[in-house]
């Protein structure tokens, strides 16, 4: 049984979807547990780690701090929608080539945040990049290669 069930109409990665959620669900829970899109991760469930970051109506948000019911009529972009049919997004490719992931659990969140950064500021400095990405925690890399990758993609 789903407590407080509700149908929500939304667009995810360009696809119109009608999904059955609970009014108690966060967007993160709806993505992961209701429709099986597990790219966004739960790291803390209280907005402090960025592992759940997605883009909602063009803005970077933590999906654990959005109620699933709120996305009625909204457009969501997740990491699953970053690559085109034929190729990886330059950020994804650079992260891979530059070893910007070790365990990879923070990677979807970082990719969405970096994507949002470059939409906003196509040529950030290292300082601006680190500040923008401060809301995404990584425990494996010490951030070096992630920052490096974003700056490389910005230049390219």
């Amino acid at each position, binding site marked *: 049984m789903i*407590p407080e069930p509700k149908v929500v109409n939304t667009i995810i990665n360009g696809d119109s979807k009608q999904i059955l959620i609970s009014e*108690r669900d966060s967007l993160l829970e709806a993505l992961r547990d209701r429709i099986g899109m597990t790219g966004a991760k739960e790291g803390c469930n209280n*907005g402090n780690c960025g592992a759940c970051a997605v883009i909602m109506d063009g803005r970077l*948000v933590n999906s*654990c701090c*959005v109620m699933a019911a709120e996305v*009625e009529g909204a457009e969501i972009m997740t990491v699953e929608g970053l690559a085109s049919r034929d190729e990886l997004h330059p950020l994804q490719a650079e992260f891979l080539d530059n070893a910007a992931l070790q365990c990879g659990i923070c990677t979807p969140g970082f990719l969405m945040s970096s994507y949002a950064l470059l939409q906003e500021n196509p040529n950030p400095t290292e300082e601006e990049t680190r*500040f*923008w990405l401060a*809301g995404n925690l990584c425990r494996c890399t010490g951030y070096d290669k992630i920052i490096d990758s974003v700056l490389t993609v910005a230049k390219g």
Partner: protein
Amino acid sequence: MQAVNYARATDVDDAIRLLSEGGQNARVLAGGTDLIVQARERTRKVDLLVDVKHVEEFMVLEFDSSTGLKVGAATPLYQVYGDNNVKINYPAIVDASTVIGGKAIQGRASLGGNLGNSSPAGDSLPAMIVLGGVATIAGPNGRREVPVGEFCTGPGRNVLESGELIVYINFPPVGDGEGAAWERFIPRNEMDIAVASAGAWVKIEDGSVTDARIALGAVAATPLVASDAAEALIGKPLTDETISAAGDAASEIANPITDMRGSIKQRKHLAKVLTERTIRTAVERIR
């Protein structure tokens, strides 16, 4: 998540109705970056979320050089600090809102939400106070205005009555000779709750400080209006001595606790340091 329902308000009256009919555990859902977490962690009893983000009045961002700035209670921070008029005229709001919780939080969080959450450490509160922010509140008995400095009554508590909500916050127009700034201290470089924060607004005419407002955050049960600190500046030219006196007064009025985020000694010291720093920055910004 505890058992909650979700309702989307169609206009301000509808929001008030949903809130009133929803009972004492109905809450306004703006950005949700505090409320959703509290509801999930069951630190706040919530059974109805009234989403106001589809009502224009809650989402406005309007500037007029003669009437000032109007920010809807649910207008997201990224819009506020991204606005050129805000950047030019109200940089203290930019100081605070660019560091609340990180970029993803700022995609949703709002000044109204920060105010409504009424945390003594709310980053934007001292900035809004010194800028003379006034909140317009609406409820079953109509509308009223409350200066931001009088809104919070204790940690997590405020003057809102049953069924009331914040609609928008007004900031008076900026005149010549005025400057303001806000700064906080945190142990890391982002993502922390303020250990202490200070906002300063200064007006200088003919080489003397004719008016000043100092407010402190995270050093008492509510944000503090540090009148004595402002008094130390007013009616005289601004000097290192007057700035230091203002800092001392701020430290004196600060009434912090020792907790996992800071000690009394540390917070009283920071009250002085941050007051002095924000006064200096405010002055640098005077046009």
